[in-house]
């Protein structure tokens, strides 16, 4: 078999897999519809404001509810020591208010 044929076959297989990736994504999105509704209804009925992504610091557990001193909560020069604080920047409404 010609080398170019092997390469083109490899590309074709990969492109098919990329196509299947979209099919899979669409299928999973449909299958997850009820779960998304479940989460939405929990947010509505329990009045939740944030996603549970990090649970180590309160300002990364509920970033939208954080106050602007939360990362420096102990003393003004106490830099953020929670690892999640380095992944999660402050919410825009705090940054903009500080800028103003």
């Amino acid at each position, binding site marked *: 078999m*010609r*080398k*170019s044929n*092997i*390469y083109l076959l*490899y*590309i074709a297989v*990969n*492109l098919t*897999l*990329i196509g299947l*990736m*979209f099919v*899979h*994504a669409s299928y*999973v*999105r449909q299958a*997850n519809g009820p*779960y*998304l509704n*479940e*989460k*939405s*209804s*929990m*947010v*509505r*009925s*329990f*009045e*939740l*404001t*944030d*996603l*549970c*992504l*990090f*649970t*180590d610091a*309160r300002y990364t*557990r*509920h*970033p*939208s*509810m954080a*106050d*602007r*001193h939360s990362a420096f*909560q102990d003393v003004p020069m106490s830099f953020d020591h*929670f*690892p*999640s604080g*380095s*992944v*999660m*920047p402050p*919410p*825009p*409404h705090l940054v903009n208010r500080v800028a103003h």
Partner: protein
Amino acid sequence: MSRIEAQRNILDFTLSSLLRRKRKNAALVLVYTLVVFLLASVMFFTHSIRKEASLVLKDAPEMVVQKLVAGRQDLMPLEYLEKIREIRGVGSIKGRLWGYYFDPFFGANYTLMSPDDGHLPPGTIAIGEGIAKDRKVHAGDMIAFNAYNGETMLFQVQAIFSAESALVSADLVLMSGDDLRKLFGIPEGKVTDLTLKVRNPRELGTIAQKIVQTLPDTRPITRDEILRTYDSIFNWRGGVLIVILFVAVISFFIFAWDRASGLGAEEKKEIGILKAIGWETSDVILMKFWEGVVISFSSFLLGVLLAYAHVYFTSSILFEPVLKGWSVIYPDFRLVPFIDAYQISTLFFLTVLPYTVATIVPSWRAATIDPDLVMRT
């Protein structure tokens, strides 16, 4: 000979040439795939979280009002609720009772909340899947919490939220309002914060201003701000993520430039011989073009496929140590794949195009090599 056949012949020759330097090219493909994999994983992961946050949090409270004392959030007196209710345009308003509980035995933080529907009788709780897994408890088991005054309070687990809802409930403990007040020592007449609905959503900003004017020690947070929080936090074009990715991508392109410009003696000789037997400069450039196509397409497609498998089949296992941090309870990040052609094309332009640009000048320089000089050295 047809044009397609001519291109295939050059492709055959290019592949043979690449295979002659197997190790070098395999290393390049490996690094390239890794860069695409990293970029695509971050893109898929952040886009899915942002999309899910926007879908799920669209039902968050229209506005939350906090009371601040000395720069920190404080308990909200119910008199504030009455004052805000009097502001024109405010629809319904109610107090939320919630707080954080640190479990000293498991080193975990929980979010305790009291739903106002009253479906949980005193002495019972509903917990998130993360807590159930961490404490190895099932529905009907008892869980002890230490109250603010040192007393131990026992609760029966009435329900465990599904694993599918972990993204909003992994660390959640729901209990009755009376139990939550007893546990935290929150006096009657005070709540954690207020949530309100307005009659006309377009007046939300004006009402927020009026609240601050009436009660200057309060801070209103609107639903738009909540949604924007997640949009900005998981924007892969901002924050720490872009710094990490920028470093990775720049390092790769320096590597690619170096690889393409530092032609070995064998490669130079090969180009020299090709030109001596009649290859034009354009043919050599075409060969170099195919070389770039073979390497970049193979790596790009493989990197995207691996990233998809990483994010959606293994729950982003490689990101886990970073995301987990010091969190004892954390969701599995079983994200819904919200992918589209725009993301793939952005990735393509971010990875394949710069690679092509980085290798184009070295390729042209290689193609203009003097055959006589190369074969003599």
